[in-house]
C-alpha cells in the first residue's frame, strides 16, 4: 500500500464506521495482512459480522501538463454467520448506500480522493466450518470500490 493509499483507507474506515451501526459489526478495520480473501475467521461465533477493508492496487497515470492520477482499488469484505443470501445482500446494500449517498465525502477528499464509489457487489459461496456445525457457516460478500486521487 502506498503512502497516499493508507490515509485514504483509514479515512474510509473512519467515515463509514458510524454509518453501519445497524449491522452490529463485531469488527470493522483495515486488513494489512497479506492473507487471501475470502478466508474463514478465527472464531465465527465472536468475530462475525466482520468487515475488513483491503487495498489491492493503485495504477499511476502521468497526465500531460495535468500532474499525476492514481486509480486505487479497494475491496470491502463482509463476513456474516448463519444468514441467508438475502440477508448478506441487504447488508451489502447498506454499505453500498453510504457511498451512493455521498460520492466524495469531505473526510475522504481531505485524505486525497477526488472521487470514490462502489464498482461491483459480489456474494461468494458459503464457507462451512470444517467440523460441520451449521450455525458456524460463514457467508462472504464483497464490495469493490474505485477511488481516484490526483496530484497537479
Amino acid at each position, binding site marked *: 500500500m502506498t503512502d497516499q493509499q493508507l490515509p485514504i483507507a483509514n479515512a474510509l474506515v473512519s467515515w463509514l464506521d458510524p454509518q453501519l451501526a445497524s449491522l452490529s459489526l463485531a469488527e470493522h478495520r483495515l486488513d494489512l*495482512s497479506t492473507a487471501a480473501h475470502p478466508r474463514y*475467521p*478465527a*472464531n465465527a*461465533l465472536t468475530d462475525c459480522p466482520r468487515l475488513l477493508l483491503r487495498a489491492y492496487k493503485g495504477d499511476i497515470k502521468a497526465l500531460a501538463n495535468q500532474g499525476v492520477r492514481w486509480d486505487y482499488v479497494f475491496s470491502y469484505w463482509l463476513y456474516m454467520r448463519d444468514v441467508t443470501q438475502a440477508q448478506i445482500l441487504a447488508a451489502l446494500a447498506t454499505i453500498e448506500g453510504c457511498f451512493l449517498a455521498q460520492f466524495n465525502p469531505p473526510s475522504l477528499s481531505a485524505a486525497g480522493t477526488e472521487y470514490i464509489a462502489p464498482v461491483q457487489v459480489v456474494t461468494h459461496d458459503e464457507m462451512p*466450518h470444517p467440523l460441520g456445525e451449521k450455525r*458456524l457457516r460463514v457467508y462472504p460478500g464483497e464490495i469493490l470500490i474505485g477511488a481516484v486521487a490526483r496530484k497537479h
Partner: protein
Amino acid sequence: MSWGSIAAALKTRLAAVSGVGKTHSFQRVFKGSSDQTEFQSAYCKDRLINVWMVTRTKRVSSPIPGESKRRVRHSVLILGLLKQDDARTSDATFEGVVDGVCVDLETGDRTLGGACVTHGQPEAAISLGKLSEQDVHLAQIAFDVEEVL
C-alpha cells in the same frame, strides 16, 4: 480455553446422561484387583463396573491466516465401560447409554459451555473387552474439538 476445561466440561455433560456411572475428565489406569478399594473408587458405581472417561489421542495446532491466533484441534476419545451381566441384559442397557451420550453430544451445546468453539459429530465403536480380568462392554466415542488460542 484449554484442554483441561474442555475435558472437565465433557465430564460434566457425561455425568448428566441417564445410565452413566462414574465419570472422569481423564483416563484412569489403575491396574490392581477388582476387589481393591482403589479399583472400586476408579471404575465402579454400586460395586459394578460402570465408568466413563475423557481423554484425547491427538492435538494439532495451526496458525490462522491473517490473524495472530492459532486454531487448536483436539481428537477426543470418550471411553465407556460397563460390566457384562447377561441376567441384567447389560448389552441392551449399554447400547442405550451409548446412544444417550451420542445424542447429547449431537444435540447439546456445541461450545461445551464456552470451553471450545465447537466440536464435530461423535463416532462410536462398540465392542467387548476386559478390565482387570472382568468382562466388560466397551464404547469408544471419538470426535474433534476446536478451540482458538
